[in-house]
């Protein structure tokens, strides 16, 4: 589905990502983990074509650099961790923008499936009751769920998520991961997400990639990659031991 070969990103003289090669197949959920500054966000922003890069990123064998923005948006959706809405757009207006790339013809108001997809996306994310509310009145979590609904309304085959549960409380963190897990079960769908919570990565991911200072130090099956030794190398601490210590507080 998505093939990334020799991906390198430079920010001036600093190499943010160096020679990373991975491939993502339908049905997979690739979790990107690593310490701060490891290059996780840079990796997903390169897929989203937001940063200049060297190497090749192919979607269904087509180089993303040769595809038009609306062609990419029909296949790949991106959920960022930061949103700043300055005007009083309603939740539904923001979610409806997810159908932008599916517009049929210059003068049509929306595409044939637009309203149905928008309604379904609002329902899935629990934002239907707030659809007429101004974005300026929402909490950080509600804003994030609105943009998640926009991603679902976009109806892509691949979702890229940059720390998707950053502003969400525990209930919505769980709900968001479960929603994406269910979404992937449909044919020809996959997801890539940057995560800080290794527990979530182990529970929901099918595959994982560990980055350290821009270099890929492990990639493959989720359980194999997120091993005690690999995590020790990526974070410079015993992540598993620390998580077990925290869990022990509940068992005591």
């Amino acid at each position, binding site marked *: 589905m998505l093939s990334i070969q020799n991906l390198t990103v430079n920010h001036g003289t600093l190499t943010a990502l160096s020679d990373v090669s991975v491939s993502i197949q339908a049905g997979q959920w690739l979790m990107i983990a690593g310490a701060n500054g490891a290059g996780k966000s840079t990796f997903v922003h390169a897929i*989203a*074509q*937001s940063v200049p890069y060297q190497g090749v990123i192919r979607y269904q064998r087509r180089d993303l650099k040769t595809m*038009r*923005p*609306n*062609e*990419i*948006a*029909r296949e790949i*959706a*991106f959920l*960022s961790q930061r*949103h*700043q*809405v*300055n*005007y*009083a*757009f*309603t939740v*539904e*207006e*923001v979610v*409806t*923008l*997810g159908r*932008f*790339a599916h*517009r049929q013809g*210059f003068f049509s*108001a929306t595409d044939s499936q637009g309203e149905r997809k928008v309604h379904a996306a609002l329902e899935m994310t629990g934002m239907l009751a707030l659809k*007429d509310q101004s974005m300026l009145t929402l909490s950080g979590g509600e804003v994030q769920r609105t*943009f998640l609904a*926009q991603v679902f309304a*976009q109806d892509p085959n691949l979702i890229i998520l940059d720390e998707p549960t950053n502003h969400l409380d525990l209930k919505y963190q769980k709900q968001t991961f479960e929603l994406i897990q269910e979404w992937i079960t449909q044919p020809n769908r996959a997801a890539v997400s940057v995560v800080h919570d290794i527990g979530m990565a182990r529970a929901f991911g099918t595959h994982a990639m560990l980055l350290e200072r821009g270099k890929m130090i492990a990639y493959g099956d989720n359980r194999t990659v997120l091993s005690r030794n690999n995590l020790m190398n990526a974070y410079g601490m015993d992540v598993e031991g620390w998580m077990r210590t925290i869990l022990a507080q509940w068992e005591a």
Partner: protein
Amino acid sequence: MDRRKRPFRWTAYALMLLSTIAILLLCVCMGSVNIPLADTLTVIWNTLWGRPIPQGMSRSIILLVRLPRVLSVALCGVSLSLSGAAMQGLLRNPLADGSTLGVSSGASLGAILAIAFGLTIPGVSYGGAMAMAMLFAFLSLVFILTFAYRLDHSLATNTIILIGVIFTMFAHSIISLIITFSGDKVKSIMFWTMGSLAGSNYQNALALLITLVLCGALILSSSRELNALAIGEDNARYIGVDVKRVKLRILIASSALIGVCVSVGGTIGFVGLVIPHMTRMLVGPNHRRLLTASMFGGAVFLMLADLAGRVLLSPLEIPIGVITSLIGSAVFVYIFYHTRKAR
């Protein structure tokens, strides 16, 4: 679906158009000499259909003085508010406007350079000034935004306004320098810098109309893209907007609209700031409604400002730019205060 999310119905367009025409007729009728509405309608109607105009009617006041002036004022209002609404959406900044960004001053510099160096386009009066005003408006906008982006990638309000102020001061210092060395052309430059639509003719109105049709179509056809950009440039890219192309389209169209207005009537400040802001409070931020409503609002506001300038201290006339700046600066402070307070 909430009615604020849909485009206007044709009845709403008809209502806005009729209100604008009513204000236009009022502005033609009123002035230092008041003319009955029936006379005004008869003169315009008979002229349109080539019929003779009855004796005793103020034909020359209506056709040669007031109608071309009011038409030019209305078209300037439409152009300035449309470009303001587009720039506020593009930059996600409710304080963006030709005057606050310094674009109008850049356009003035271009026009004055054309007058001082005698740049003309054969057959078009003030054609050289018009072309140079458009070119300099675009170059100023590109310069200001590039500089602001280099300083602050988020294009924050304070950064843009500060650079706009500095650029305006720079443009005015160059203008003063040109006036100092312009010799025998100083009179025509000074006359132009005073900025007024009092002497507008049908050629001015036609230039404004042609620019508005071409550039207005570009902006109006980008209303969905503007909605996406108003929510965030990155988000717009993720949902499939060709951000670079749309930005360039909006910047060129807005600069041309500001440039032609400046070349016809000098700097008329704050129309592009006040009208989109007021309109957004009434119809919401969706550009499918905001752009068209701002156009009608801009025409009505500027025609009434011009009328106030003509009748308040009659027979003295207050320049239109003074009235718009008085109202605009108060609204600017209001928006700035509330934007800061909201943080």
